[in-house]
């Protein structure tokens, strides 16, 4: 992660009442002092190994080139921003994807409006850079934070201006879904993210015992909420209910992409 990012107050979330930037913390969220990892002696051995390996190991980059790795680090830093975390507690987001693409692991299916995952990321990088060039005249990584957010928002909205030749052969909505899926997989698989959202994590063999009314276990902590605003420079805090779409294809903007395949 880019350490100088932390010095830029426009990239930090703000206190709702005062608008003052919030200092980066080891564990953002509403569960002060909660640590799932502190409970790992109570987990079974296989689970403890899988989770602690995820925290301790930083595997070598094997699939992406150095440039590609830097590019995706920049992009993923907007998809799940971490400027509210101290640098020592930022969660690696691109390394798990690099590993997945290196071993060619998939989720077990590919939309026929999409290329193979490896190609999708290659084409995606090209398309995002073209979008940045067309909108702001520079490569994605050379843009200021807000413009980077806006470039990605065009993909998010399914309305990119540039690279129509790429989006003609790769569904922009399914690409967004692929990229967000990978970044969610990486961030919310990490026990530091569990601490942030108050998820108790593994509970075998000890069990969860307080099932009702959202009560914490003796080793969990109660929620202490505080109100906060997204960083000044960000546009990614805007939400839009998609509840009116009742089919998956509508909700993911894929209705018109009827398969050409017919045997």
């Amino acid at each position, binding site marked *: 992660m880019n350490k100088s990012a932390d010095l830029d107050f426009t990239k930090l979330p703000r206190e709702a009442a005062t608008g003052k930037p919030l200092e980066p913390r080891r564990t953002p969220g*509403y569960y002060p002092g909660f640590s799932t990892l502190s409970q790992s*002696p*109570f*987990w*079974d051995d*296989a*689970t*403890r190994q899988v*989770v602690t390996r995820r925290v301790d190991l930083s595997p070598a980059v094997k699939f992406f080139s150095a440039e590609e790795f830097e590019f995706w680090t920049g992009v993923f830093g907007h998809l*799940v*921003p971490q400027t509210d975390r101290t640098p020592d507690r930022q969660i690696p987001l691109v390394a798990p994807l690099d590993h997945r693409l290196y071993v060619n*692991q998939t*989720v*077990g299916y*590919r939309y*026929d409006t999409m290329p193979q995952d490896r190609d999708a990321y290659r084409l995606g990088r090209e398309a995002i850079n073209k979008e940045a060039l067309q909108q702001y005249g520079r490569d994605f990584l050379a843009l200021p934070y807000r413009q980077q957010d806006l470039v990605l928002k065009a993909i*998010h909205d399914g309305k990119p201006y540039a690279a129509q030749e790429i989006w003609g052969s790769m569904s922009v909505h399914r690409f967004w879904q692929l990229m*967000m899926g990978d970044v*969610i997989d990486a*961030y*919310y*698989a990490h026990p530091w993210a*569990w601490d942030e*959202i*108050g*998820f*108790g994590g*593994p*509970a*075998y*063999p000890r*069990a*969860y*015992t307080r*099932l*009702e*009314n*959202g009560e*914490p276990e003796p080793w969990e902590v109660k929620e202490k909420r505080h109100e906060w605003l*997204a960083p000044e420079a*960000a546009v*990614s*805090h*805007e*939400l*839009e*209910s*998609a*509840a009116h*779409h*009742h*089919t*998956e*294809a*509508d*909700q*993911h903007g894929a209705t018109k992409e009827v*398969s050409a*395949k017919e*045997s």
Partner: protein
Amino acid sequence: MKEPILGAFQPPGNDQHMLGALQFLHVPMRKFTQQDEVDYLIVGIGAAGGVLLQRLARAGFNVVGLEAGPFWDTERDWVSDEAGSHELYWEDPRVTGGSDPLALGANNCGKGVGGGTVHWAAFTPRLHPSDFEVYTRDGVGVDWPINYEDIRPYYEQLELEMPVAGPAYYPWGHPHGYAYGPHPMGGVGNTLIRGCSALNIPVSIGGPVAILSGSHGDRPHCIYRGFCIQGCKVGAKASTLITHVPDALKQGAEIRDHCMVSRVELAKEGRVTGVYYFDRAGNVNFQKAKAVIISGYAIETPRLLLNSACPGFENGLANSSGTVGRYLMAQAGNVVLGRFEQPVRMYKAPPAHALTEEFYETDPKNDFARGFAIQTVGPLPIAFGKQMLASKKAWGWGLRREMMDYNHWAAFGLLGEILPWDDNRVTLADEKDRFGLPVAHVSFNLHDNDKKLIKFAKEKTMEVMAAAGATEVEQEARYAHLVGAARMGSNPATSVVDKFGRSHDIANLFVCDGSIMPTQGSANPGLTIQALAARTADYLISQGARVFQSNDRDMTTPPIRKELAPAETWGKGVPRLTGKP
């Protein structure tokens, strides 16, 4: 206490902790050779394959099961972790398309001994009597070649074998009760009860779900850890790996894991003689068999039949009707999310623990046929993140903020009946897998009735969530389960197999899994698949050696043979004399 008195929990076997699987199989597995012509070869040891293997072995047949995935050592291989559990799902390549493409993989496809029952949420409602005659009643879909009374004894028996926990009185379909007690409520279950009660909708509390609410012999009780669909390390949730495979092995069945079947071989005389498969090392083998049963589920079963095309069956084995791969069904599985001021912590308790089938049947007031169920679900953080992505288009800081409220959300899943259509189908793609076998292309398209049903069901489920007191209600559109694509029927021109699962075209080739279901109702299919397997097993056992020697097709329905169930799974009830004097 910072850690357990004897230190961090260690793997089983060091005498320090009572942890891990309590069922040890001390019998060496029987091994057949490829020269042995076994009686039955079963492709896929999942929900159906596990039950078939057990029944046929207990009846004394020589049975081999070939399974593409591993034989799990649950304590070593399974983890309480979403990202670490991907090997439970079918991750080999497939292509998905159509106007409404289906997500596959973790959504609906298992791999390894136990198959989908390893990662199901284990809701086990029965089909309703109406499900077997939707064409007669509503003029949609197709009738089954059997009726509810044909499958009912198998529902009753399998509910004891898993066993199923549920309420003493279950009011829908053919009303019945459950022998094993219901589960306590988690936060999501309480939310469903609150919402349904406010709208005067009856609700089933604590089941039916194939998870132990109390101890059962040496199988431990549920510990409410919430990782049901990541594989139950506890052993409280039923899978055929626990319920039927151990008995099958004790009775002399063999399971070969990591074996991918590539084609079923047909001899000149029109009978199958065995299957070719790739073993763990990637070598091609041929196992001779007197009869073959394909239990590969709704995508791999038709794929194997299509990949087994040969002279006489150029369009796929057992496909003279052209229906192999067609009439594939998924259920509408929209997830409705509600935010509450009071924390819910929906990761505690099994995802499956309360439901309503009040909207299951056709209602003349609606503009569509058939109906839906509303059930509890309990997404863990990664799944919930993707629901926020779909339902609120969340990303960046918006996603981070929504996720910090994870503990304030509850989730219901609707389960809506999508009808069988011939353009929803599995075909072969040009792409090949690592064995060089063409992969499946799945095409899925919603039709008018389906879309109307989903819209209504989604709105009703959102209404229930709002009535429960949610301050915000959102919704992720998706699908659940897969059935069809090798359907059963009485007419060989419009179906692949007969009412016992025997292919119309080839007398010693059977299909037994979810793919033979002609329609699907709004019930989770796991119980029905296992009940159909037990029924097919009874038929095969009643036919004895005739299946191996003759092309005659005896359509007599045999009585249920409860004595072939795993030991101790029936016969403990209040005595009631029903025989003639």
